[in-house]
């Protein structure tokens, strides 16, 4: 058991990261919510929309600056499905598994995408392009089954159409990175 305990401790102790004040982009978020204990969820939402996920350091700063125990910050962050602790891919692909989508065979779409991308739910492709997630319901049930990529909703999907949409984005991303190269 001893080696395990030491790896655990190594994981927690990372020098003292909080001697410095929070980085400016984080301070801008935190400063707006000082003295508002009910704003924790909102703060976490803003941190996630800035970084794309919830990195450890900003969460430590949140706890220190807003005066919460770190356990409370993590308690809240892990409770809600919206928060993620790993950096997402460029495109977050969410397959709806609501009732209407389920009845219209959204499970087949998910299975197809998993197979084509070679990843499971809540994983990101090695090229950092796609993160695959499921969502309980997007409220666009009459267009079921539904797929949401970043903020764009794709209705009346089939496994093939879903893969086409992803392929189109992959081509687009490749073209964009081609342009960036000198």
């Amino acid at each position, binding site marked *: 058991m001893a080696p395990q305990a030491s790896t655990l401790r190594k994981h927690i102790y990372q020098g003292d990261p909080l001697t410095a004040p929070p980085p400016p982009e984080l301070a801008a978020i935190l400063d707006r919510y000082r003295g508002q204990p009910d704003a924790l*969820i909102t703060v976490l939402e803003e941190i996630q929309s800035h970084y794309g996920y919830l990195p450890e350091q900003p969460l430590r700063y949140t706890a220190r600056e807003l005066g919460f125990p770190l356990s409370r910050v993590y308690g809240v962050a892990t409770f809600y499905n919206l928060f993620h602790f790993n950096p997402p891919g460029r495109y977050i692909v969410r397959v709806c598994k609501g*009732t209407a989508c389920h009845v219209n065979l959204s499970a087949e779409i998910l299975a197809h995408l998993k197979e084509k991308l070679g990843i499971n739910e809540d994983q990101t492709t090695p090229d950092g392009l796609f993160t695959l997630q499921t969502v309980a319901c997007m409220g666009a049930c009459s267009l079921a089954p539904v797929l949401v990529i970043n903020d764009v909703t794709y209705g*009346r999907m089939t496994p093939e159409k879903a893969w086409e949409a992803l392929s189109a984005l992959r081509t687009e991303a490749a073209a964009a990175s081609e342009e960036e190269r000198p």
Partner: protein
Amino acid sequence: MNATIRVGTSTCGLAAGAEAVLSAIEIYVHRRQLPVKIQRTGCLGACHREPLVEVIIDGSSALYGPVTPERVTPLMDYHFGAGGRGVSRDWVISRRRDKSDYPFLARQLKVTTQLCGIIDPYSLDDYLANGGYQAFREALKMPPERVIEIVTESRLRGRGGAGFPTGRKWEITRKQPRTPKFIICNADEGDPGAFMNRTVIEGDPHRVLEGMLIAAWAIGASKGYIYVRAEYPLAVRALRRAIEQAKEYGVTGRNILGSGMDFEFVIKEGAGAFVCGEETALMHSIEGKRGMPRMRPPYPAEAGLWGYPTNINNVETYASVPSIILNGPSWYANLGTERSGGTKAFSLTGAVNHSGLVEVPMGMTVRELVYDIGGGCKGGRELKAVQLGGPSGGCMPASLLDTRIDYEDLRAIGVIVGSGGIVVVDETTCIVDFARFFLSFTQDESCGKCVPCRVGTRKILNMLTNITRAKAAPADLDRLASLCETVHRTSLCGLGHTAPNPVLTTMRYFKDEYLAHVVDKRCPAGVCTLYGF
């Protein structure tokens, strides 16, 4: 010529491609310099025909759908140019202003959704031109007790699912001596398959605010929280805009319209937890904590947000209030049944021809709703069951379709009105797998605070999985039933309390199908072969 073109650009419209249609129309209008007003509206409810375009010229109206960018030019030529070549009759939904020639819309009675798809949700002027904030002004002229009397007389009941009389709830909160008092609008529409609240907020956000203002006046509340799902970004944006406009218009702030009432709105975005639809969990979430429910009593009316008296109602409940004040309580009460007044919005989805948002008077039968409005099952298949109320609701078989939509009538057959999701299921769906789907959802969303729900839902799910994989014995059905009963009776909050409903109702009405799985090891719908039969 006075011409308006309306394009439905709610989430559902956009997903169907309304943005491309809208820009095609804008280009056409711009090129020919037509004197046409283009309006972005919410959703008319006919989601199965999206994207929807309505052309109104001098009071006559034509509604088209689905409209694609390619269909824009022939349509516009027909109305504004040379003849109607290339316009197909199939594109036309309705040619009447009141839509009485399209059965999906004709049989409905719209109260909370009356302006959805008619006005621009981002325009306060549109709302004011349609009688907006008149009801609030009327209410301010009455003593708060009178407002509560009117709501009580209207027989309005909580539209979030439980159906508690709204007037009584307001009265209890009003009578609490402690101040400040809060009101909360529950827009955490987590039921998969339900989108009534999204449609109302995206299509007519001011109606919700007005209802809340009237409630605040009646109760004496000084702050109103709107707890809305973050999965509905358009709804959040519509609400933010509406609140800003309300502030400029002077219906929030200090001493509103000279009445002495102070009130402000706060939006709280949910972060994706189904259990937060439960009122005590929702309040914990607003307080910035883990959204876990607690024991009741004390009820929120006595000790709610931070321990102060709090009134919680659903979006639809608040959105019903302005019409009740304007048209009188007896008008609203007479729309419905002897025990519950008014109308209820449902999202009709699944294997039905005309899916979308429908609003019907309480007391209509489920058969009328599914066949007359919904147009029956897709592809002429046979209807097997109708599921009401999402994961907390139940499945009714085809033989009970003549049940009236009413809180008590539905409860008598084990089904609930719930928040208003209706999923039509045809013969291609395996009923056991369907129940298993709901349990996998509630199991996933159980917050883990109380044992019956945390452990019980998992055990139920395992049993159902075994049944669908031909690993169960007939005796397991009795065990399943008794476990469901235990979870139902001993769970802390509504989530666990209602989680077994899909299993209990399907076991009651579709026993044969369960027996086919456990005795004959056969799935009548052929779905469970997926799992290795």
